């Protein structure tokens, strides 16, 4: 079966006999279905096969750290920028081709050009209108730590998407305030394993509201159909910390065995066909970062969002956030 697939792939490339079949190893912390779609397109276009190893962002990042120079990874593709920044700080990333970086607005790329932004996702509050009125929802994410929210809020501290939010609160208000906020959330909240469980819990009325990324609600809506979903999204306004934008990005490892093919994969991720497929397919619910590409129709236009003014480099890595979550007894 695999042999047939290789022949098919080879048959579709322009010059299968001049370029021997190449393979790159992708350490993936994006959703498997999204990456499945992208790698299939990439292989069809270039003949380069992609071996995928999937996990949660912080986990894959620490795996790459541990493997060090022995890492078999060529490319790292993840949902949240802090993991890329961490690897960059440790000097494990190679510079991304200039032409690739140029496709994406500079503020969504690494300041030193060692990784490129691909997609963006928004932090939101998912709520069940049967349990709580939209007008009763708070102006700020920080309000959710107040006693009146006891028992009404669900969140997933062990989900990789929660870390950037903690980093942002630390950045804005300092560590002490962030810890107090986490303790308040812990006292008030129901804890779930991941964002998938949170949106499912809100939809079935297990909890009134949940802190998630917009992606998960849109995916549940697509899965159940608009008639059947009992929850809605609430977007934090006025640059509140709760409306933080997470940047999903990709990088080539310094130790990549096949750096040239790895760079081609990055160039493909920001290319028009890939970005359009990400926006149009019913598989991904994030904002393509290449200018002028509309997102999935379930998402409000990118320019209507009112995120806080924290740049990706200011957000930094997620080491402090992880330590704080441990200190609060949440992980």
């Amino acid at each position, binding site marked *: 079966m695999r042999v047939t697939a290789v022949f098919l792939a080879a048959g579709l490339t322009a010059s299968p006999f001049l370029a021997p079949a190449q393979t790159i190893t992708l350490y993936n912390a994006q959703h498997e279905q999204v990456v499945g779609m992208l790698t299939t397109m990439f292989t069809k276009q270039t003949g380069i096969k992609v071996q*995928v190893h999937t996990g949660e962002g912080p986990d894959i990042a620490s795996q790459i750290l541990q493997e060090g120079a022995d890492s078999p990874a060529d490319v790292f593709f993840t949902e949240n920028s802090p993991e890329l920044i961490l690897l960059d700080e440790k000097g494990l990333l190679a510079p991304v081709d200039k032409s690739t970086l140029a496709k994406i607005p500079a503020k969504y790329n690494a300041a030193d050009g060692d990784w490129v932004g691909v997609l963006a996702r928004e932090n939101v509050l998912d709520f069940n209108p049967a349990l709580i009125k939209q007008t009763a929802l708070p102006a700020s994410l920080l309000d959710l730590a107040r006693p009146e929210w006891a028992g009404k809020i669900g969140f997933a501290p062990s989900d990789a998407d929660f870390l950037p939010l903690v980093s942002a609160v630390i950045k804005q208000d300092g560590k002490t305030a962030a810890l107090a906020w986490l303790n308040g959330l812990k006292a008030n909240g129901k804890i779930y394993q991941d964002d998938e469980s949170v949106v499912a819990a809100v939809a079935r009325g297990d909890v009134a509201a949940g802190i998630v990324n917009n992606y998960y609600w849109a995916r549940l809506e697509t899965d159940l159909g608009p008639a059947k979903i009992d929850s809605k999204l609430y977007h934090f306004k006025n640059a509140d910390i709760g409306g933080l934008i997470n940047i999903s990005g990709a990088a080539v490892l310094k130790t990549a065995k096949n750096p040239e093919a790895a760079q081609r994969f990055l160039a493909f991720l920001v290319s028009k066909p890939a970005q359009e497929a990400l926006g149009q397919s019913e598989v991904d619910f994030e904002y393509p970062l290449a200018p002028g590409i509309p997102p999935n129709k379930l998402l409000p236009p990118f320019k209507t969002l009112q995120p806080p003014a924290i740049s990706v480099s200011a957000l930094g890595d997620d080491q402090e956030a992880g330590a704080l979550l441990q200190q609060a007894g949440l*992980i």
Partner: protein
Amino acid sequence: MLLPLGVTVLDAAGAGWATASALLLRPLVGQLLANTFLLIGCSVLCCGAIGTAAAWFVERSDVPASRAWAVLLVAPLAIPPFITSYAWVSLSPALQGFWGALLVVTVSYYPLVYLPVAAALREMDPALEETARSLGNNVPTVFIRVVLPQLRPALLGGMLLVSLDVLVEFGAFALLRFRTFTTAIYSAYRAGFSGAEPALLSMILLLLCIGCLCAEYFVRGKARYGRLGRGVRRGVARYGLGGWRWLIAAKFTGWAVLTIGVPLGMIIYWLAQPGDAATAPVGDSLADVAQAAWASIYLGALGAGLTMALALPLGILASRYRGWRVTLLERAAYLAQSVPGIVVALALVSLTVHAIHPLYQSTFLLLLAYAVVFLPLALVSVRSALMQAQQGLEEAGRSLGLSRIAVLARVTLPLAAPGLGAAAALVFIAVTTELTATLLLAPIGTQTLATQVWADTSTLAFAAAAPYAAVMAIMSIAASWLLARRFGAASVLVPASV
């Protein structure tokens, strides 16, 4: 075999006292201990009560179709617990958490109590009960004062096996979002890769497991309620239940629906639902399923091969030679039984990521993990198969001038072949349904049925997981059934009586 133990101890020791105490005295560890003990306590009681009651009605009452119940009551052993877990959690997400975990553990593991208790009931001398009856005791009093004390070794042994299995189970609890040591070790491994934290948590889990194993050994070794007389004992009397027998039969039916009906029914239900590309991480086309099935079979066959290659020499030593070295070797293999798959896998990752790098993420490493985890399972069958091959025939072969090797090839192995085949088949089933070590060690790009079910169910894509779960359940049930047909029920029941 004990290498993973050593590596875990070293990794944990590398942390130093300050780090270790900070990591171990966290509130999380306390919560894990509470979760684990609460679940073990409750599930042992549930399995004990249900297993014993079911065994008594099947063996000692005139409940209709007792032969059929005897088979149906054991059948849940052929369904991997994480498939059962998948079925229940997809039936209702409300089952996430403690109650769901208790339910899944009870329906999956109660046969571990039922089997030894039923066997003990069959072996019991009816004379004692009859004497008690003749002294004026009614049936419930006789059960409590005469039957139950005689069942104690079987019952306690079964309960300890349930405890051990609850301690090492990973997939079922992860899907139910119930945190125990195995799931915490897995998250710690993923968050910090092969650092000190997972090793430290592993140490606690290991101590608990070894405690269980020792307790089981103690219970088995000490308590024996043997008959002294060697005469033929009369068949046991069955108690007439009157009209109640239909009520009991109805209860058995309900129980079979819970233990077998729900898992298989939910798989069939989800098979009929269309999968959704948006939610399913893994495609469910026929080609995808076939490829995963092939990977499972391939790894199962190679895993069984390697395990048997290790078990055979050990089995020969254990069945043909005496001495403290042999005993020590055999005990060491059984000790490995208490080492959970996740600990073995973690130790192998930690060992190969730098030190023996060529093996890192290789198929051979995964096979090695299988061999370590399933060696005790293979060893029990291999040893008993070799015991049954009469030594006198080997001696005859030697006296006729054959070399040791020739005797082994032409006398011992042919005699023991059926038992060895059963052992290999058991390991094959165990490998194809194994999840934890496979998740951690599978080479990049290798997906098995178990890892695909895992990938889909972790994101609640139940329909997409169904074909993989179905193929896995069919393979496991068919293999168990074939084994039971060919070698008698005892061959399938070996894991329960280790």
